[in-house]
């Protein structure tokens, strides 16, 4: 593309002045009527940019999303580098030093078996993140494609797919998870497959619903009217427009998966001791809330922050995609 990237400075970027009283007015340098209806766009639009550059530029302006991204990168790094970052063996018990206070030799104290809490949290991040990725991966894998098909094909196929979806959704999620884990056997991967299966209908519904809405849009008919083949319409018009709500849903689901992992582990259906996830640590610490509250707080904190980070990141990505922002 032939575009220079002049430094911009127009309305598109929130140019400071939060709460400033005076509305900023761009001075129009050309009093002569040009004969073209270009003023509005000139005033509203920044310079010309390719789609990706434009996305990155917008994304970088979303500082909450940037912070969330940095945080998630750090957590992932921590998971990868766990053996290096840990100060103790996460599994070695020391019954002579149980429930030690934070500080001193054990940065965050020790648990009821005298294991170093900090090291356990660092190692648990591997389990928690992997669990979330597994669950969302399963959900997307079995939810998105059928959703696209159901939404675009309509009629019979749609009816069949939606019948199955409704059946799955009519089970209470926890019961369904217990049932699936009961069949597959209690370990973390199976628990996360169960969570993924619970997510799948939600992805499917979202995708189907969005496709149905997008299909109604005039631009689909406009594209059909120029003779565009259906496959190209799905790829060029439907998918990009499904993407942004899907991304939000994925970030939300990732957060939910971590919470679900915590509850399933709480019920003994997820990660098996002596292995730990953040969720299972919270559960274990819960027995000592009165005497050693840090056992709940410290592993709970990364859960809360990671959940928050995924949400903020999803919103940031959505807002940065070149989608219409309807005004007025």
């Amino acid at each position, binding site marked *: 593309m*032939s575009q220079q990237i002049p430094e911009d400075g127009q309305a598109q970027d929130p140019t400071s002045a939060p709460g400033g009283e005076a509305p900023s007015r761009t001075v129009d340098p050309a009093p002569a009527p040009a004969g073209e209806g270009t003023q*509005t766009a000139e005033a509203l639009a920044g310079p010309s940019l390719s789609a990706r550059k434009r996305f990155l530029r917008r994304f970088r302006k979303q500082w909450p999303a940037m912070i969330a991204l940095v945080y998630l990168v750090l957590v992932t790094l921590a998971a990868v580098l766990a053996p290096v970052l840990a100060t103790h063996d996460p599994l070695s018990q020391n019954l002579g030093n149980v429930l030690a206070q934070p500080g001193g030799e054990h940065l965050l104290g020790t648990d009821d078996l005298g294991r170093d809490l900090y090291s356990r949290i660092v190692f648990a991040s591997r389990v928690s993140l992997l669990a979330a990725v597994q669950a969302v991966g399963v959900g997307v894998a079995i939810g998105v494609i059928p959703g696209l098909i159901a939404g675009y094909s309509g009629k019979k196929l749609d009816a069949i797919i939606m019948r199955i979806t409704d059946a799955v959704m009519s089970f209470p999620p926890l019961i369904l998870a217990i049932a699936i884990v009961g069949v597959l056997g209690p370990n973390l991967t199976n628990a996360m497959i169960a969570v993924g299966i619970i997510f799948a209908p939600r992805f499917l519904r979202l995708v189907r619903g969005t496709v149905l809405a997008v299909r109604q849009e005039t631009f689909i008919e406009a594209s059909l009217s*120029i003779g565009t083949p259906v496959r190209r319409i799905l790829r060029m018009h439907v998918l*990009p*427009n499904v993407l942004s709500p899907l991304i939000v849903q994925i970030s939300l689901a990732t957060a939910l998966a971590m919470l679900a992992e915590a509850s399933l582990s709480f019920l003994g259906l997820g990660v098996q001791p002596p292995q730990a996830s953040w969720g299972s640590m919270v559960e274990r610490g819960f027995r000592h809330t009165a005497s050693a509250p840090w056992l709940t707080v410290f592993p709970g904190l990364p859960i809360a922050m990671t959940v928050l980070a995924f949400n903020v990141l999803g919103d940031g990505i959505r807002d940065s995609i070149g989608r219409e922002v309807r005004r007025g």
Partner: protein
Amino acid sequence: MSDWTHSTPDPGAGAGGAGGPTLDARDLRVTFQLKRGMFRGRVPLHAVRSVDLEIDAGETLGLVGESGSGKSTAGRAILRLLEPDEGSIRIDGQEITGLKGNELRRVRRKMQMVFQDPYSSLDPSMMIAESIGEPLDVHEDLTASQRRERVGELIELVKLSRGHLSRYPYEFSGGQRQRVALARAIALNPRLLVLDEAVSALDVSTQNQVINLLEEIQQEFDMAYLFIAHDLSVVRHISQRVAVMYLGQIAEHGPTERLFERPGHPYTEALLSAVPLPDPDVQRSRERIVLPGDIPDPTNPPTGCMFHTRCPYVMDVCKEVEPEPYPMQGGGVARCHLHTDGPKLGGGSVRDAERPTPSGAGISTGF
């Protein structure tokens, strides 16, 4: 019966090339099957009933009528965006009903559409350059630089600048988007452009810019326009001929001047009188025919003349017998018994007939 557009030679028609009209649609019919509740089965809705339309190269036919009269349905059926139940559609002599798959996709380049809502007819996730270039991608094998050059030409043709190409639709005003939609529609040099309320969503000042542009482009490329609108003033300005639809039928059609000055159908007369003119003295001194009620339920249209439930001139015969198209003095036809019955206007204007119950006084209560 399907031949009635030919019954009188229109001064505006036939002026085009020797190869016949660009669009020649005959006896077009479109029916929707409406679901009525859970167990009550389906009801047919005849949205378009036997419509004939003919447009020459370089000519604009205006299509007007109330909401729900079937204008868009007719336009979309002509472009085969809807499947007509019956009828023939010829573009430059080529019959396009019955075409399927790749053949149909290939003729689509000859006929394009501009939609009403400039906010939804462009894909919000696509850059303007991609939107305008899409028809080229689909139909032509251009190199990247040829494509860029062509897209650049197109955007300049609609009086925007190349700098706009790498922007997104949300950065444009309604008028600008409509120009982008127009650039995209003319990318393949179509023979026929269907403009469905293409300027209705725009403000007057912007609307006129787009209309002027449309006229300029038509002259340059000798395209045929089907201009669908409910704003009669705009239609009068842009069209050489006008067709008035009511409940899926063409109630009257003819050369613009004749139709506006000497309407032959009571519905046309009422529509014209209902448009408020931007001149207080003229507007307040002129008589307004206030039609009672709304357009009837299209699934259950009135018998006889479909307009008889609202017509100020209604006669007994109107409730029983469906009027046939009658040739008008000055061109075109009207479907109304007044020409053969009652005052026997014989192709003259309804304005010459005496209206039995003068309306326009007090408030009408004729729902």
